[in-house]
């Protein structure tokens, strides 16, 4: 530890701390334009120049990279320092007069119009001020090593290798984030017209999936984490005090033995790009219901504000129901939840904006407890309900400032007229559909699906939570579209079924089993390999096949194959089936 004197204050700091850090600790502000905690001091802007007095000598040094020494006296505001700062700022202002950060810095230092006229004067508001933040970020932090300076003196500029496009750039956007003037921008080239699935998704590579996530801990998205690409960055690890960030963690597959399984794999939402007439993915300000839900979230990308893509508040909002559901071209079924969340959207938009709200619906299905009352309340809030499915959405110039608005063309079946409604923001209520991998999951548990693709329950009324496979239960939207109360009710029922079996401690099995009549068995072993459950074993001592009753499920494949009819299926013996045949053909 050493003690130094900054502007009359005695400060004790660790050896080799920079003057800038020491001053920061003492609460003394030293202006700087190229410094960041993320990378090594660069010392290019010279704005942090301070006067260091040691003994009788006094000299000007840059605070950002000059280490403290014992007994040092530093003046951050002496006449000499002020003179230097003024000179630097005047050079900067004269060269980049319209750059916001430069102007603001000059103002905060009380420096007026510059005394010089720069021959390199750049009037742009987003001119590059050569602070080198992007270069340092790219090389020291991201470790991609793409950006660098070329040329010297007034020719100096930031360039990509050989001044050409490069695939070494990992498109992390770190340079954009640190650029103080906005000179660097992210541009999407080769835009194919389809947006990524969630345009309002997390902004960072490490994020908590949602506030309701269990466990509520951040996760790293390996596809966008800079560290995973270049081995650099590690900023999150450097700010995490408990040192909880582990970059080497791998996905692991655990095998757990269980007796019963509840399949509650949920649903996917219908991809509205399949209905091109509504412009999803093509037009700005056409959102899916899930995207709008994220926007409404107070911890979401807009902090819960209802905003258009250009950041302004919409003057009118349209909500189209039944996108992909109740539609013979897509899903014939009703998704059940959309009417009510559409009404909720309308209520919240009404609450947060002054926008006019239009609902385009086929039928209003307010079927649950308190739902109809909510609908009636919404009608009183002045929401326009248009009965009729919207035909298409087109872009048209309607607004005073020339911004394109959307026009919803629809038929209002209640007044029997075609209408064109101008809206700023359009929300599509996407259908719920079975998970994309539902068929794979279904085969894993050998359960069936109903015609709509959702998992099939054993009986629609008497056994709505279990499946045809013993010990496998289903709940929630995996079984069919339903809202939260219904999902909870079904899941509770399934959980109770599971618990009752656990507390009983024993399992009842169907009496339908295969059995070997030992006196007829020739020991041919044809049945042994037929059994999908490996329930048939061959008794070497007796030279007979034997059925393990606990493993046998009673399908009867072995019974049909037995050449000597030694294998009998309990409940479905040959004699019983033949007698049935006899009866049927009288």
């Amino acid at each position, binding site marked *: 530890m050493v003690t130094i004197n900054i502007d009359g204050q005695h400060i004790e700091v660790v050896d080799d701390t920079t003057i800038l850090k020491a001053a920061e600790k003492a609460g003394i502000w030293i202006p700087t334009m190229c410094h960041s905690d993320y990378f090594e001091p660069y010392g290019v802007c010279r704005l942090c120049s301070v006067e260091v007095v040691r003994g009788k000598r006094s000299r000007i040094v840059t605070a950002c990279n000059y280490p403290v020494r014992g007994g040092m006296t530093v003046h951050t505001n002496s006449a000499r320092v002020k003179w230097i700062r003024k000179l630097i700022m005047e050079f900067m202002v004269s060269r980049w007069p319209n750059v916001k950060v430069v102007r603001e810095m000059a103002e905060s230092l009380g420096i007026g119009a510059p005394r010089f006229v720069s021959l390199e004067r750049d009037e742009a508001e987003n001119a590059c001020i050569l602070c080198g933040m992007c270069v340092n970020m790219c090389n020291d932090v991201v470790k991609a090593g793409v950006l660098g300076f070329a040329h010297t003196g007034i020719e100096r500029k930031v360039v990509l290798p050989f001044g050409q496009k490069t695939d070494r750039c990992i498109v992390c956007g770190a340079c954009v984030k640190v650029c103080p003037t906005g000179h660097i921008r992210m541009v999407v080239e080769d835009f194919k017209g389809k947006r990524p699935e969630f345009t309002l998704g997390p902004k960072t590579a490490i994020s908590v999936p949602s506030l309701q996530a269990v466990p509520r801990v951040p996760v790293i998205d390996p596809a966008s984490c800079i560290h995973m690409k270049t081995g650099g960055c590690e900023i999150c690890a450097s700010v995490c005090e408990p040192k909880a960030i582990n970059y080497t963690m791998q996905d692991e597959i655990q095998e757990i033995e269980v007796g019963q399984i509840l399949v509650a794999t949920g649903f996917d939402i219908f991809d509205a790009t399949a209905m091109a007439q509504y412009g999803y993915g093509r037009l700005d300000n056409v959102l899916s219901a899930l995207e709008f839900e994220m926007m409404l979230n107070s911890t979401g990308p807009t902090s819960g504000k209802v905003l258009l893509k250009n950041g302004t508040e919409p003057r009118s909002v349209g909500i189209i129901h039944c996108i992909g559901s109740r539609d013979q071209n897509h899903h014939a079924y009703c998704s059940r939840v959309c009417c009510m969340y559409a009404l909720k959207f309308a209520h919240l938009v009404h609450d947060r904006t002054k926008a006019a709200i239009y609902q385009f619906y086929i039928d209003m299905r307010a079927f649950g407890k308190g739902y109809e009352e909510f609908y009636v309340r919404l009608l009183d809030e002045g929401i326009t309900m248009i009965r009729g499915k919207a035909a298409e959405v087109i872009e048209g110039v309607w607004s005073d400032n020339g911004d394109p608005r959307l026009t919803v063309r629809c038929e209002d079946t209640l007044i029997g007229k075609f209408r064109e409604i101008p809206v700023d923001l359009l929300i599509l209520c996407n259908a719920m559909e079975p998970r994309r991998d539902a068929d794979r999951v*279904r*085969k894993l548990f*050998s359960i*069936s*699906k*109903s*015609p709509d693709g959702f998992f*099939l329950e054993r009986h629609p009324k008497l056994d709505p939570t279990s499946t*045809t*496979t013993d010990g496998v239960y289903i709940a929630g939207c995996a079984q069919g579209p339903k809202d939260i109360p219904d999902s909870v009710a079904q899941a509770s029922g399934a959980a109770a079924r599971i618990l009752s079996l656990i507390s009983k401690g024993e399992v009842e099995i169907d009496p*339908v089993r295969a059995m070997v*009549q030992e006196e007829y068995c020739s020991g041919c072993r044809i049945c042994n390999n*037929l059994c*999908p*459950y490996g329930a048939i074993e061959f008794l070497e001592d007796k030279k007979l096949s034997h059925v393990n009753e606990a493993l046998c*499920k*009673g*399908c*009867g*494949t072995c*019974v*049909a*194959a037995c050449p*000597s*009819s030694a294998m*009998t*299926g309990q409940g*479905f*013996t*040959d*004699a019983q*089936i*033949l*007698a*049935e*045949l*006899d009866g*049927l*053909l009288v």
Partner: protein
Amino acid sequence: MAFEPKIIGFLCNWCSYTGADLAGVSRIKSAPNVRILRTMCSGRVDPAFVLKAFQLGADGVVVMGCHLGDCHYQEGNYKTIRRIPFLKRLVGQFGIDPRRLRLEWVSASEGDRFAEVVNEFTEEIRALGPLKLPVHAELRDQKHRVPETEDAVH
């Protein structure tokens, strides 16, 4: 009286039988000619049952099971799909038109498909006419047409 085909349908318990049930519950009309016999799996359908059905006077036999990959018993229907083509050749040798034997996949949710299969098959058998096996006449007079015990089956 017009010819009404007698058809035996071997339906697996988990898919086709449930599908037939669904057709009933959904009030889907289908021909009454198919007399349904439930087995736990289409793999349980012993070729002897099919032959016996023809012997006892069935004009057609349809075996229905789960779609491939959907079998409740994982692979029972794969056994069936191997047995039935052999059986078709066999019945041909007995002088029975192989079209009188059919294998169809009907899942538990395909009530409409069940009705469709039944109607179509019934019409096909109706067009083929009654199956006139010489054995029919003898059996008609026989009082006990089915052997009493397992032993007598073969």
